[in-house]
C-alpha cells in the first residue's frame, strides 16, 4: 500500500484528468453524438420501413379481399339482374297473354252483345215492319172488304198465317 501511494504521481493524475475529460468532450461532439444519432436514425428507418412494409402487406390483403368482394358482389348482382330480367320477361309474356285473352274475351263479348243488340234491333224492326205490314194488310183488307169480303178474309187469314210463321 505504501508503495502504491509512493507510485501515485500527482502530475500524471492531473494530466490524465485533463486528457480524459478533454477526450470525452471532443468525442461527444465529434463522434458519439453523430454516431449514436446516425445509428438511431438508421434503426428508426429500419423500423419504419418494416412497419410500412407490414402496412403495405395488409393494404394488399385488404385490396385483394375487397377486389374479391367486389367481384362476388358484381357476380351476385349480375345473377339477380338476369333473374329479374327472366322474371320480367315471363311476366310480360304472361301479362301479354292474359291481356290478349281478356281483350279477346272482351271483344267476343262485345261482338256477342253487338250481335244481340243487332238481332234485337232487327227483331224490333221486323216487328215494326210486321206491324206496319199488318196495318197495311189491315188497310188493304179493309179496302178489299169493301169490295170482296170473302176474298179479303181469306187473304187476312193467309197473311196472318204467314206472319205466324215468322
Amino acid at each position, binding site marked *: 500500500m505504501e508503495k*502504491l501511494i509512493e*507510485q*501515485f*504521481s*500527482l*502530475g*500524471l*493524475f*492531473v*494530466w*490524465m*484528468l485533463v*486528457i*480524459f*475529460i*478533454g*477526450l*470525452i468532450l*471532443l*468525442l*461527444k461532439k*465529434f*463522434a*458519439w*453524438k*453523430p*454516431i*449514436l444519432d*446516425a*445509428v438511431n*436514425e*438508421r434503426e428508426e*428507418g429500419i423500423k419504419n420501413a418494416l412497419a410500412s412494409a407490414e402496412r403495405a402487406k395488409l393494404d394488399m390483403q385488404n385490396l385483394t379481399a375487397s377486389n374479391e368482394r367486389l367481384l362476388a358482389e358484381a357476380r351476385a348482382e349480375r345473377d339477380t339482374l338476369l333473374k329479374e330480367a327472366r322474371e320480367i320477361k315471363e311476366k310480360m309474356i304472361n301479362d301479354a297473354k292474359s291481356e290478349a285473352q281478356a281483350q279477346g274475351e272482351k271483344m267476343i263479348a262485345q261482338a256477342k252483345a253487338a250481335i244481340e243488340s243487332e238481332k234485337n234491333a232487327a227483331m224490333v224492326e221486323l216487328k215494326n215492319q210486321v206491324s206496319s205490314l199488318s196495318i197495311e194488310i189491315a188497310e188493304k183488307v179493309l179496302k178489299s172488304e169493301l169490295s170482296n169480303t170473302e176474298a179479303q178474309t181469306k187473304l187476312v187469314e193467309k197473311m196472318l198465317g204467314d206472319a205466324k210463321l215468322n
Partner: protein
Amino acid sequence: MVISKKPLYLIVAFFFALLPLISNATISDSTAVHTENAHSEEPKDLKTEIKEYIAHHLLDSYDFHLFSWKDDAGHDHHIGFPLPVILIDNGVQIFSSSKFHHGETVAESNGNFYKLYHGKIYKTDAEGTVSYDDKHHVSNAKPTIDLSITKNVFMMLVVSVLMFFLFSGLAKSYAKNGGIAKGAGRFFEPIILYIRDDIAIPNIGHKNYKKYMSYLLTIFFFVWFLNMFGLTPLGVNVTGNIAITAGLALLTYLITTFTANKNYWGHIFWMPGVPSLMKIVLAPIELLGTIIKPFSLMIRLYANIVAGHVVLMSIIGLMFIFKNWLGSSLSFFLAFALSLLEILVAALQAYIFTMLSALYFGAANEEHHHDEAHH
C-alpha cells in the same frame, strides 16, 4: 472484386491481433541481448536483473524507452526518444528529458538543478549530490509540481488522437454512406451498439441512459486501447498505473454523485423500510459504500493489468533463466498462451470498468420501487 478485399482486411486484422504476441518476442529479443551479455559478466545477477527490468517496465518514465543493450565495451545503449519535462518549481521549468541522460547527468534549467534518480526527479545542486536519510530513502527535495509529459501521458495523448480520428471518421462515414458505417470504424460500430444496448440501457434505463453514453463509450475504448497498447512492444503500462485508474474511478464517483437523484440519497442516509436505529447505523456504512465502489474499480483495473504484465514478463524472463531448449520453449508457449489470455483480459477489464460504472449510474438514477415494477 468485393471478395478479394475481405481476406485482405482479415489478414490485416489478424496481423494486428498477433502484434502483441510478436511484440513480446521483440522485447524478449532485446532482453536476450541485454541479459546474455550481462550473464557473461555477472552470472548470479540474472534474476535480479529481470526483476528490475519488470519493475522498471511497470513504472512511468520521463522518456520513451523502447529497448536498450550493452555493447561489447560494456556501454549502455538506449533506443527511444526523450519527452518534455515540465516542472512548476520557481516558475515553470520546461526542458527535454534527454538532459538527464538516463539519470547519468544533472539537468539544469534557469539556475535550478534536477537529477533523475530511480525514475524520480529530485532537486539537487550543480554536482548532483544525492543525500539519503537513515532508511536509505533519498532526502533531496522534489519539485513542487511535476507536470511532465511522461511516457504514460504521451501514450494517453496518442490513444486520444487515435480515438478521435477513428471515431470522428466513423461519425463522418454515416453521413457519406447514407447511414451505413464504412472504413476502420466499422469494426467498432457493433461494440458501440453493444455498450448502448447491453451495458447502458439495461443498467441505467431507457429514460436516463443518454447522458452517460459519452462517458461510458469513451472510458471503454480508452481503457481497452490503453490495455492493448500495454501488450505491444512499446511496453507501456498506462492502465497499470494507480494514478490513471484513480482518475478514472474518481470520474465515475463524481458523475455518480452529481447526477444522483433524491431516491439515491434517500437510500444512503435514511434507508427506507428498516427501524430508525438501523437507519442511523446504516447511513455511515452506505456512505462508505459509495466510496468503496469506485475504490474497488481503481484497484481492480490496476491489479489486473499489473498482475498480467508481471506474470507475462516473468515467464518471458524464465526463458533466459532456464536457458535450455525444453524449459525455454515451454516458457515460450506459456507466454504465448498468456498473451492470448491478456488480450482477453484487456477487453474484459475495459468491459468490467464500463459495466460497473453503468451499474453505479443506474443506482444513482433508480426510481421508486413501485415505479420499477412497471418496467
